[in-house]
């Protein structure tokens, strides 16, 4: 039996000790050395991708990038618990989740380069593209789960959102709908302590995980920098949903070690000591310590992991820089699924306008 209102659940100590908990251990009993190493590899790769994307932004190749630095365990641990037929409704920061779902690296940055409003076809990886209106996606996940329920399949929706998002009406309404219909949906809140410049205390006077039970949704509060705890919690929630027991809320307590986005300057509002303290809880370091104890870390493993990460970074960079610009007239594409006379007229007019410029005489340059 799981106790749904414990204090922070931790299965991996800061020193890399596996903390045994009879209620959670059965859910991660398959995590042998190689399995843990696979999680570690994911985390190293996504951190490397994150660093590379930040660099690409600094070099002007991306318009913006929302780093996930510090949140690798929360994202990898939860994403790796999912089945292919589960469906992810993320916010804008779940790039590690996207990686785990098999999204192409180029597709991850497509949005941030400004080439498209979404980088991939959600149905190919069963993951929606980034949602920018805070909290809106939690309702989409709940609706999808209502669909799965009606289809009588045991697929589960999982939605990611931040601590700040919990203040939006939409997120609360999603909890209400999910509870009312006992929808198979997981509310995965990454409490990274900040909503841009606002500390989590602005949003909530109690632990965020305390909110859901009042709606009739059991919740777990886990150490979000502990990939084992995250994996276990997500599996528990998935199992409940598949069994028809309805929604679960998970608060993964973690920390946004970087800026909100590359456009942000946290020095304006954040005490450096806080960041320093959280560095001691780095999710990668912790798992590395455990793996070292387990004897999984050899120089070869280190080198192979690094190579994998570097290859990913190189792929990302090449894909990003090589991305062709969209065609001008594609601005009119896909507004509707069916023909629309008003819009077609605008397209025709604009096409005519464009061709009125000679090749040397480009629009947008003045004349």
């Amino acid at each position, binding site marked *: 039996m799981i106790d749904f209102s414990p204090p922070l659940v931790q299965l991996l100590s800061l020193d890399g000790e596996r903390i045994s908990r009879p209620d959670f251990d059965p859910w991660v009993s398959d995590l042998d050395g190689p399995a843990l190493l696979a999680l570690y590899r994911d985390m190293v790769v996504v951190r490397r991708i994150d660093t590379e994307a930040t660099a690409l932004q600094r070099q002007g190749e991306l318009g913006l990038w929302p780093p996930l630095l510090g949140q690798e365990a929360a994202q990898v641990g939860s994403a790796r618990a999912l089945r292919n037929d589960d*469906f992810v*409704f993320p916010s804008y920061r779940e790039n590690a989740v996207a990686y785990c779902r098999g999204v192409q690296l180029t597709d991850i940055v497509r949005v941030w380069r400004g080439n*498209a*409003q*979404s980088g991939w*076809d*959600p*149905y190919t990886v069963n993951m*929606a*593209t980034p949602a920018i*209106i805070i909290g*809106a996606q*939690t*309702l*989409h*996940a*709940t*609706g*999808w*789960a*209502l*669909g*799965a329920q*009606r*289809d009588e399949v045991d697929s589960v*929706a999982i939605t990611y959102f931040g601590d700040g998002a919990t203040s939006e*009406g*939409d997120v609360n*309404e*999603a909890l*209400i*709908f999910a509870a*009312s*219909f006992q929808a198979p949906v997981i509310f995965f809140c990454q409490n990274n302590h900040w909503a841009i410049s606002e500390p989590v205390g602005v949003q909530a006077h109690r632990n965020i995980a305390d909110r859901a039970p009042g709606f009739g949704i059991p919740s777990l509060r886990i150490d979000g920098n502990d990939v084992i705890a995250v994996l276990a919690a997500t599996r528990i929630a998935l199992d409940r949903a598949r069994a028809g027991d309805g929604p679960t809320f998970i608060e993964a307590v973690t920390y946004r070690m970087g800026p909100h986005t590359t456009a942000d300057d946290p020095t304006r509002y954040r005490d450096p000591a806080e960041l320093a303290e959280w560095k001691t809880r780095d999710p990668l370091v912790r798992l590395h310590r455990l793996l070292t104890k387990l004897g999984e870390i050899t120089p070869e493993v280190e080198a192979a992991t690094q190579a994998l990460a570097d290859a990913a970074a190189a792929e990302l960079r090449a894909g990003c820089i090589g991305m062709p610009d969209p065609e001008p007239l594609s601005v009119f*594409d*896909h*507004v*509707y*699924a*069916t023909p*629309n*006379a*008003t*819009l077609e007229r605008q397209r025709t007019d604009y096409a005519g306008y464009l061709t009125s410029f000679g090749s040397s005489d480009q629009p947008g340059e003045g004349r």
Partner: protein
Amino acid sequence: MTTLMTPSIVSTVPGLNAPQPSPLSETTTLTVAKAINEGLRQAMLDDPKVVLLGEDIGALGGVFRVTSDLLAQFGARRVIDTPLAESAIIGTAVGLAYRGYRPVCEIQFDGFIFPGFDQIVSQVAKFHYRTQGAVRMPITIRVPFGGGIGAAEHHSESPEAYFTHTSGLRVIAVSNAQDAYSLIRQAIASDDPVLYFEPKRRYHVKGEVVPELGAPMEQAVIVRPGTDVTLLTYGALVSTARDAALAAADEGVSIEVIDLRSLSPVDYAVVEASVRKTGRLVVTHEAAQSGGLGGEIIATVTERCFSYLESAPVRVTGFDVPYPPAKLESHHLPDLDRILDGVDRVMGRR
């Protein structure tokens, strides 16, 4: 106190064992409300992915009874009484659409669409564009709209222009039982999201309904041909406009009345042809004048038919005031006299 908490969502459905009505199979006289009801029923029979969501749409059949008996016929998995939250009604419809459903949302009254506005404008309208066509939003949002029923605040709004200004949405307003039936079916079958406005104060007006889809919903219809003035409208005012045309005919003015049906996109082929013929345009709607659909249509017609215009197009609309209390609504809503006054103005008689 055993009943202090009702344990779960409606479990015993009144009338669940009642005989299932068969769908419309021949020409029948129906009220507008019943015609929509029949259209919904047919759409649900045609496609198991059609689900209804809304407040009080189940056992009650909606406050206007538009969904009467559908819970009994299709069950609570397809006729979903939701918690009282419009953003969630729309937002979960988005998720259902994501999974291949065709949700039909009922917004109980026009004024209650605004809590769901964000999900409509930023999600429903944008998803197809956002995902380059990968994710479709075949969502129909039904909204009883307009005034003239002596109601309290927020129950008589005409919010259509907010949606006609929103790229990615289609907007329909029906005026009669036949269109109510045909166009709700077309709206539900559309792969694009549709705001479907129902002429609230004419819910109880009867008309003959043929169980057919009829002309495509984006086509405007000439309700009454004429040669002197084009009178454009939609929804409940179509009937007033027709009356005005009759009255004007007595005074020797021949009015062509057009029922737009589709407010986005507007069927400018029909509108332009009419204005080219008559040279004079009056648009009437209940919504406030500033920023209403009338201005948009006049601007477009002026752009496209400038040299055909005999005089400046005229608007007869609600005033730029919040919807007034019931005892004042007759001084806000366009009526026969105000429309005729508009006709006089466009004819240069005032």
